[in-house]
């Protein structure tokens, strides 16, 4: 027995004006992480550093996300980040006074984040021996 998923956390983040996909991804990750306080490591008698933290980000331009910058948000554990095509981009309304359609850069960027938390764990093999 080995890697066991113990929790999943979900979040959403945006970049309203700068089309910054990394910033949106970081905010989505922070939204996911800071809505919850995981105390499972303590409950099982493990260290928080034993946590395996796998982050999945969804944005419309995955190649624009700085993965190391996103990973730097994780406060502890063994972290990894993957980015897939997802999230949502929404074009801003056309500026009628300029008489032109919105440019590709005039959009609101939304990122989704899912954080999966694992431990390499199993039922104690020497159960009762320490009692």
């Amino acid at each position: 027995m080995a890697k066991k998923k113990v929790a999943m956390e979900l979040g959403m983040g945006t970049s309203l004006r700068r089309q910054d996909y990394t910033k949106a991804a970081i905010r989505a990750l922070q939204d996911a992480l800071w809505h919850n306080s995981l105390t499972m490591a303590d409950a099982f008698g493990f260290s928080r550093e034993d946590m395996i933290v796998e982050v999945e980000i969804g944005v419309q331009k995955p190649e624009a996300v700085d993965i190391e910058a996103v990973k730097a948000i994780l406060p502890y554990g063994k972290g990894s980040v993957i980015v897939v095509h997802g999230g949502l981009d929404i074009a801003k309304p056309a500026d009628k006074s300029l008489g032109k359609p919105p440019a590709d850069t005039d959009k609101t960027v939304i990122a989704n984040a899912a954080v999966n938390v694992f431990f390499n764990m199993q039922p104690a093999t020497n159960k009762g021996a320490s009692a």
Partner: protein
Amino acid sequence: MKRLILEMGTGNDLYGEDYTKAACRAVQDALHHSSLVLFRSLGLSHEDMQVNVTIGVQKPDSVDTKIVADELPRGNAVVTVVKGGLDVHDKDNDTCSVIATAAVEACLDINPDDWELTR
């Protein structure tokens, strides 16, 4: 009982001044930012889970705790309400928006001696 997670959320009732509705929405917000996957992964039972819900609103007496407790799908839920949250008064338009904060603690009787890390 060991606490597994503290889930936090916020909810509001913008125009109805319904503190129970705001509290229920806060609980839903708290619940749906995470999933306690370990019950499936480790074969644990939800029925043994103790769920402590604390609601913060400006008028605690206006919250129907029975209705809030029904928002919790699993475990044994105990709901307490304290003065907190925020009421946003708009004097110009004679409206009041009520904001509720929810803290949901999930606890389980885990014996650390029953589990170990694998290398």
